[in-house]
């Protein structure tokens, strides 16, 4: 992670980072593209164009929902996207988390056609997730304007949470504040938005003329506080430092001898 990115992260709680290794991202996109072609039997020869123009295939309502669920199932069962995302963004993740890293077991894939009314309302992941968690949001197509997501920086997140005080009508005021105070980010393919799980974020209705395809996944340090998500259900070990591996080998020998 470049120093400027790290400063951004500390100040705002998020940073848009270019992949140190772009090949794994190309690979994820290619595998998803192949599945798209297999399911729809049509589409552009180029993955970027095919994903961007899925909405022109005329799938609506339950047909599109079945397609979306099928793609999500495929990504989770057949593609080790988490491993590939880690390989692409290893340097910033290790810089922020250290060498002992847990990764979310499941991968969240979102596909949002232009005009799809099911937007992602503003929310934060932590709490209930651990405050020591990072979200890595990876676009599979260039994301900009309403095709992207928005995030509130640390300062505005704090203000937003004061607006959401539980009184009647406070959620409407909170939502309005979030939409007014958020940063809408341009995140081209080959980059990721890495943000602290405690930041408020969301996505507007996609009003661009292209379909949004994104993946998000969470990482945390093995030894950091767990939050309320059950760690065994939610995470698995991504990598261990040589020292931790050595210590655990030793414990294993003692305990399971």
């Amino acid at each position, binding site marked *: 992670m470049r120093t400027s990115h790290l400063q951004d992260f500390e100040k705002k709680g998020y940073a848009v980072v270019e992949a140190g290794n772009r090949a794994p991202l190309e690979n994820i996109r290619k595998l998803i593209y192949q599945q798209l072609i297999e399911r729809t039997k049509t589409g552009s020869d180029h993955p970027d164009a095919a994903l961007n123009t899925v909405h022109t295939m005329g799938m609506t309502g339950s047909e599109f929902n079945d397609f979306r669920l099928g793609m999500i199932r495929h990504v989770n069962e057949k593609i080790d996207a988490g491993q590939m995302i880690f390989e692409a963004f290893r340097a910033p993740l290790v810089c922020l988390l250290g060498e002992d890293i847990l990764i979310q077991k499941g991968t969240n894939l979102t596909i949002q056609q232009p005009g799809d009314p099911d937007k992602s309302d503003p929310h934060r992941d932590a709490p209930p997730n651990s405050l020591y968690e990072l979200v890595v949001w990876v676009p599979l197509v260039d994301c900009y304007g309403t095709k992207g997501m928005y995030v509130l920086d640390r300062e505005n997140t704090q203000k937003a949470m004061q607006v959401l005080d539980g009184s009647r009508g406070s959620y409407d005021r909170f939502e309005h504040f979030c939409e007014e105070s958020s940063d809408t980010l341009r995140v081209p393919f080959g980059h990721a938005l890495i943000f602290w799980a405690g930041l408020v974020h969301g996505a507007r209705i996609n009003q661009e003329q292209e379909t949004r395809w994104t993946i998000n996944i969470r990482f945390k340090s093995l030894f950091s506080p767990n939050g309320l998500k*059950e760690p065994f259900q939610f995470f698995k070990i991504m990598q261990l430092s040589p020292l931790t591996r050595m210590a655990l080998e030793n414990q*294993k020998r003692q*305990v*399971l001898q």
Partner: protein
Amino acid sequence: MKSFYSWVDFGFLPHIPQSLQHLANRDMAEKAGGRIIFYGAEEPHTVASQELVRAKLERTGPLEGFVFFSVFQFCYGPEFHFSLLKTMVESRRMEVHFAREGISIRNPDQLREQFDFLYSMDFTRRRESANDPFFRNLLASV
């Protein structure tokens, strides 16, 4: 079809009643390709030592394994009961499943594979239980 014992978690009873724990255990048994043939639980004064499940293990006939509601059942004593887990999986060649966490340990290799995460989480949870009211109450309740 495999036969399993279902063993509910005493510590979670104030939050998740026995009937719901059994439902979760039954579902886990089915996912593991088996069925529940017997139900059991510790007594309040054996929760930390897991004495009843140890006794049951000694006396039981042919059985493919146990479905526990939670990994916590191995954590109520001063340290994680890896020795009990090892006896079940290595000496008795049983499967051990945990419904709440969705963990399955089917053989000694899987026990060694899962060790790192089980050990680390036991460590972090013990550290957190001092500050977390839910886990503090859970541990205090037994």
